[in-house]
């Protein structure tokens, strides 16, 4: 497609055969070699393709950070906004045009630090969008300060005495807010990540997938090995529909549970509550306001 102002040193990635969401020529990916983000991208490309979504109807939304660069590397529309501010535009995009599949992506700093308030209230609205949080327990793009998820004791150039704040548990937080689909995966497990991404995208309502992602450059503690050693798959027969039980599962840490931890179908999505879609499903941009509508309202002031 487009010549992607490719840096001559770009790490050249395999082009996935026939995946319309990949580019048909090599692109420059700014992530470090070995970064967990590459695997997550693979999983996302596969998930989008397997869901047979039409490329023109997919919008990726993100803030700023390494994770938030994801939209740059997927061949679809995107809104790559401000650090921490991915969810408000994502919500509006879906609300204005429910025909679109809207996927938000962000780092743990982006979504839980700067953007924490939007996450809480997005959960309250429950738009039919999907959020992938790359949880690398660090600020990658800004070179290694603590993230809200950083584990106690982690020493960084700012947390010189080691992190002592409680790490945020995005899964527990999401369940407390009754987010309608809450899962956690280890991004390096591309196959499983892809499967859960597909479920999340297909879920009607706000879904959050917390994706463990090793940052090989700045987080030397929470490595791929560490994530492997500190996670476990949900027991078979686990029922994700009981909120209290899901919470009890969610607060387990080191090891952390992996899988779909909570899922509920009790809530209507945001768009479903909007009056404008009661009689017509047409996206906003296809609607017209008439002069007589305006004259009518003017008459109220006669």
């Amino acid at each position, binding site marked *: 497609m*487009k010549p*992607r*102002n490719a840096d001559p040193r770009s790490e050249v990635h395999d082009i996935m055969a026939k995946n319309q969401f990949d580019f048909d020529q090599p692109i420059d990916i*700014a992530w470090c070699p070995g970064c967990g983000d590459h695997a997550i991208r693979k999983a996302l490309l596969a998930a989008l393709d397997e869901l047979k979504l039409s*490329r*023109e*109807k997919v*919008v990726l*939304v993100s803030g*700023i950070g390494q994770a938030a*660069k994801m*939209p*740059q590397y997927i*061949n*679809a*529309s*995107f*809104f*790559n*906004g*401000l650090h921490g*501010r991915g969810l*408000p*535009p*994502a*919500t*509006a*995009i879906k*609300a*204005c*045009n429910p*025909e*679109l599949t809207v996927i938000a992506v962000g780092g743990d700093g982006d979504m839980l630090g700067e953007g924490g*308030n*939007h996450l*809480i*209230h997005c959960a309250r609205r429950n738009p039919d969008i999907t959020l992938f949080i790359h949880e690398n327990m660090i600020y990658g793009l800004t070179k290694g300060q603590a993230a809200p998820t950083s584990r106690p004791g982690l020493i960084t150039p700012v947390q010189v005495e080691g992190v002592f704040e409680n790490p945020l548990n995005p899964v527990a937080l999401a369940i407390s807010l009754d987010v309608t689909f809450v899962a956690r995966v280890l991004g390096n497990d591309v196959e499983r990540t892809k499967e859960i991404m597909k479920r999340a995208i297909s879920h009607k309502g706000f879904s959050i997938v917390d994706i463990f992602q090793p940052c090989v450059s700045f987080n030397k503690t929470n490595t791929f090995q560490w994530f492997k050693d500190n996670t476990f798959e949900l027991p078979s027969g686990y029922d994700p529909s009981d909120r209290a039980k899901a919470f009890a599962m969610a607060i387990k840490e080191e090891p952390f549970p992996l899988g779909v931890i909570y899922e509920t179908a009790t809530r209507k999505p945001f768009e479903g509550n*909007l*009056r*404008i879609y009661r009689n017509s499903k047409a*996206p*906003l*941009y296809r*609607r*017209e*306001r008439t*002069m007589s*509508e*305006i*004259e009518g*309202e*003017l008459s109220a*002031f*006669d």
Partner: protein
Amino acid sequence: MKNSGRADYGARKAMLRPDISIALVGEAGQGIQSIETILVSLARAKGYHVYATKEYMSRVRGGINSTSVRISTSPVDALADRVDIAIPLLPAGLPYLKKRLTKNTALIVDGSLFPQKTRAMIDIPLAAIASEVGGAIYANTIAAGVVCAIIGVDESAAESFVADRFAQKGEAVVARNKLAIKRGFDAGREIDLSFRLARPSKKKSGNITLAGADAVALGALAGGCDYVCGYPMSPSTGVLERLAAYSQRHDIIAEQVEDEIGVINMALGAWYAGARALITTSGGGFALMCEGLSLAGMIESPLVAHLAQRPGPATGLPTRTEQGDLNLALYAGHGDFPRIILAPGTLEEGFTLTQRAFDLADRYQVPVLILTDQYFVDTYYDTKRFKPAAMGDRRSIVETDASYKRYSVTRNGVSPRGIPGFGKGIVCVDSDEHDESGYIVEDAEARVLMADKRMRKARAINKAAIKPTYIGGKDAENLVVTWGSTFTIAREALAALGRRDTALLHFPWLHPFPIGAAKTLRGAKRVIVAENNMTGQFADLITRETSLPISSRILKYDGRPFSVEELADAVARELDTHEAAQRRPPKRGA
């Protein structure tokens, strides 16, 4: 009925007045709003022109609020200090009126509440009558009846008006309100004043009567607004509420967001998806949106923001008025990018500029800020019915093809705007510096290419700028400059001054500074800028844009708007000082 004022007023022959001014003062919950509504509606129905504005404390109950009403045989749209009829519903209201009372003012009170009489008062036992009618809450309807009688409204019209107004509350309430009106009329007719309101020229003018917030909301509706979001904040909430009400009858999504940062980012998402979004906020909320505004600049998103000003800094005086956020509006956001700033001075401008804002935002893909203030949004009067502009190409969007690039470089800097889902292309917008397709770039040339492209739009916008309104004789040597809500007050003030040598230059379009305005300003011998803030922010802007030093600034920053008289006096003083200075020989080196 005692009428302690009779001696004063009855002695002279009643003068015919073309314009009567009424001030009502009471605590929140006492119903001065209701008196105002009855009065204004009936006066309007009779063919008078009406005007009303209110000022209120930042509390829900108690405190002291006031309303100023003008009823006139000719159009009226500005706050006058002069009060012909004053009704303080409680003694604490009197000090609030003090400066505005003249010896001709009819001061109507319930004497039982005002044991110490400091001046002549017309005593009407409102509380006593109310309890006869059915309870204390009828005092306001009685007061309305009193004033209606004074200004010559028909009693039957008044009765049927209150009957309508309270119809939903049941027959008993209707009956008691009708009685209250009647008793008010009875009392009012007894009053013998030194003045009388002239008859209106014709029955009704076909005008509409509405407040600033209504004008902005209607303008948004006419501008094709179909997404409105905000976070409640006085005095901007009215526009959000009005558009929320419209959302029940029109294709509009109205959403209250968790905070103002969410508001602006959500609105940008809405524009991206093809909506025409409006945000509404006040200074403190706008201050939180600065980063988002910069995002609009970078992704070249249209945006319409209504910024209803109130006195700052910080929480300041939350329910009062000021024009103190101009500097913030001009420079909000980091980095350089074009924007448009409008400031309606009349209700009509409130409507037309808001409608136009949507087209400007969409055509040039820039944020457009509409600056109003508490005085503007809360003030209402009757005005010529608005004529919405045609709604030709309501959305400046294109259907994309597979080769679509969101930021294609063009001569005037404006790239055709696609939206996702409309066409075969993809639409990529990025807050980082980007190439034509929207992907991140870092090299110097690409940066300059895009920065220049964005800035070229400013030149195109310049041509669309609305010239300031000049009122006065050609080549008047003194120029009084206003922007936004100060306009109508200044217009009446200058008319009152009646000086041929002094004209008014009103700016409804503030930025980019209208080409040509510099020439007009330079043409004057003396430029006096009158604005409702502490430092003269617009005066400074003029200097910056024209290198014309502005020494004459008439500034008010006590949280209240200018009144006509106050501004007339201040202008007269400025001119006198100037003339006196001119009579003296010039100082060396001056």
